[in-house]
């Protein structure tokens, strides 16, 4: 377990170092990269920023100091928003966690259910139908699915809100506020979940068909174990292992994909912050959001490893 944590930390440090290199490798003066376009105006201001960012020091000192600051959770200052980068990100963190968390749960729930159904009825029209749906969602760009969902459920049918986190100026509290946020959450979470649902459905189906051929399943059948129990306790449980591994890797990708969903739905999370940083060429904010996103992905991977040991006690967290 300890080695796992150390590996995760190493990954985050490496990403921080990559961030550092990127700023220096970018075309143009690092000052203008770090300060956005604010540095372009006044020569004296640029010189002042140069000392402030320690660009006059040797590059190794710069790197060491930068990593030191990251270790102390100092991600720099956004000159565009006139606020520390970390403060901006922490404000947006709950919205992103709510969105990706619900999307993750939805995609696993639907994906595994559909995949299991598909494997159980392999070769029938139920199986073909699920396979086609999964294939189509797997090929659909997240942002386009989101836009089409807004067109149908918000513009045409007016069933669900397609914009923002909660109703602006409604002054709701307690349960009413929670219900309002939940209504706003439905479309973003569903559109983010559908792509990953397709991935898990295909994976679950393939894994279950493979496990169903194995000797221990034949043994169970020969012993006279009820078919439903074989499916749940023998086949599904073993087929879930590769799905969970994949889910752990995909969870990190989901946080990246949230940039698109949050952009379409104006969801006030880290992804939307990243998009705003892009629009405003606010590079220190952009790199800050990237670092936090990557750190969250590493954390998710660690969590999946833990889940793994619960589902399959044979695996230890040694390596």
């Amino acid at each position, binding site marked *: 377990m300890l080695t796992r944590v150390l590996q995760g930390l190493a990954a985050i440090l490496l990403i921080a170092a990559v961030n550092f290199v990127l700023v220096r490798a970018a075309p143009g003066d690092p000052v203008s990269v770090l300060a956005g376009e604010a540095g372009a105006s006044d020569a004296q201001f640029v010189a002042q920023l140069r000392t402030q960012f320690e660009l006059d020091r040797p590059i190794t000192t710069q790197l060491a100091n930068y990593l030191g600051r990251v270790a102390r959770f100092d991600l720099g200052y956004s000159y565009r928003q006139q606020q520390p980068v970390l403060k901006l990100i922490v404000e947006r963190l709950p919205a992103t966690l709510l969105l990706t968390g619900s999307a993750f749960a939805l995609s696993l729930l639907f994906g595994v259910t559909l995949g299991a159904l598909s494997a159980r009825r392999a070769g029938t029209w139920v199986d073909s139908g699920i396979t086609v749906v999964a294939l189509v969602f797997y090929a*659909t760009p997240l942002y386009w699915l989101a*836009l089409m969902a807004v067109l149908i459920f918000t513009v045409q049918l007016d069933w669900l809100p397609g914009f923002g986190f909660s109703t602006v100026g409604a002054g709701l509290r307690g349960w009413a506020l929670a219900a309002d946020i939940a209504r706003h959450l439905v479309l973003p979470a569903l559109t983010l979940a559908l792509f990953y649902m397709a991935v898990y459905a295909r994976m679950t189906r393939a894994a279950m068909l493979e496990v169903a051929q194995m000797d221990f399943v034949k043994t169970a059948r020969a012993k006279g174990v009820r078919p439903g129990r074989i499916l749940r306790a023998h086949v599904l449980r073993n087929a879930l292992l590769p799905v969970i591994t994949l889910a752990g890797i995909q969870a990190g990708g989901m946080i990246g994909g949230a940039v698109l969903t949050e952009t379409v739905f104006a969801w006030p999370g880290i992804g939307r912050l990243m998009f705003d940083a892009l629009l405003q060429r606010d590079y220190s904010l952009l790199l800050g959001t990237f670092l936090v996103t990557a750190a969250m992905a590493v954390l998710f991977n660690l969590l999946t490893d833990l889940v793994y040991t619960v589902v399959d006690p044979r695996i230890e967290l040694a390596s």
Partner: protein
Amino acid sequence: MKSFWLRFGRNKGAVAGLAVLMLVTLVALVGPWLAPNDPWGMVQQPFLRPWTEPGFAMGTDTLGRDILSGVIYGARVSLLIGAVSTVAALLIGVTIGALAGYFGGWVDSGLMRFTEIFQAVPSFALAIVLVAIFQPSVDSIVAAIAIVSWPPVARLVRGEFLTLRQRDFVQAALLAGESTPRIILTQILPNAMSPIIVMASLMVATAILLESSLSFLGLGDPNQMSWGYMVGSARTVLRQAWWMALFPGLAIVLTVLALNLVGEGLNDGLNTRLNGRTR
């Protein structure tokens, strides 16, 4: 070869996918002669609905540009970036995977640790940062997509090399005194090609999705009309002009779906061991 087409043809979806893919490729090749208008030219009134004027089957956008022409021109960028970035990712991935799998030991553990760390980084976020910092252009987009998509290739190739390295024909080549690069390139790599080809076809699909997502966020090459850019420019006017988002998006779905189907067909065709598989 004949049995390959037999197995490929048995997969109906793959045949349909191949047909669509060939159509898209054709459109990409002859697009400039096919398109009725310049995709950047303001040729009609803005916000023209589809089918209201002859010759404007998909309507016009906020500036009065012809959407049909844009969709036709977009095929070129999507396929080009999808193919080139996949080749680049294959070059990186195959090199690293082959070295790790062939030499084993500390080379293997070092390279694989590097790959694992790379895989832990959310690929889309990394691609955004790379393209944003190096300014959007076809080159930077291709490089960014290649950089984020090579790790699975490296892992796959390493696995293949690990098993193939133990086989008798490799031992024979070693005894015959063939040089290491020669063994890697002419003995082992050809035998590992099947799964690499299957993975490559799926990677082109993913690369097209990635490119369109980058363009959607405004990180596309500003000199190229692309499907993602068109959907992106529809985002703020969705209520007024649904058609601006619908048609380019459908083009992406069709192309990516076709590529995925072809990938499955290739898998059936190239994987002789799976002949009697339940499917």
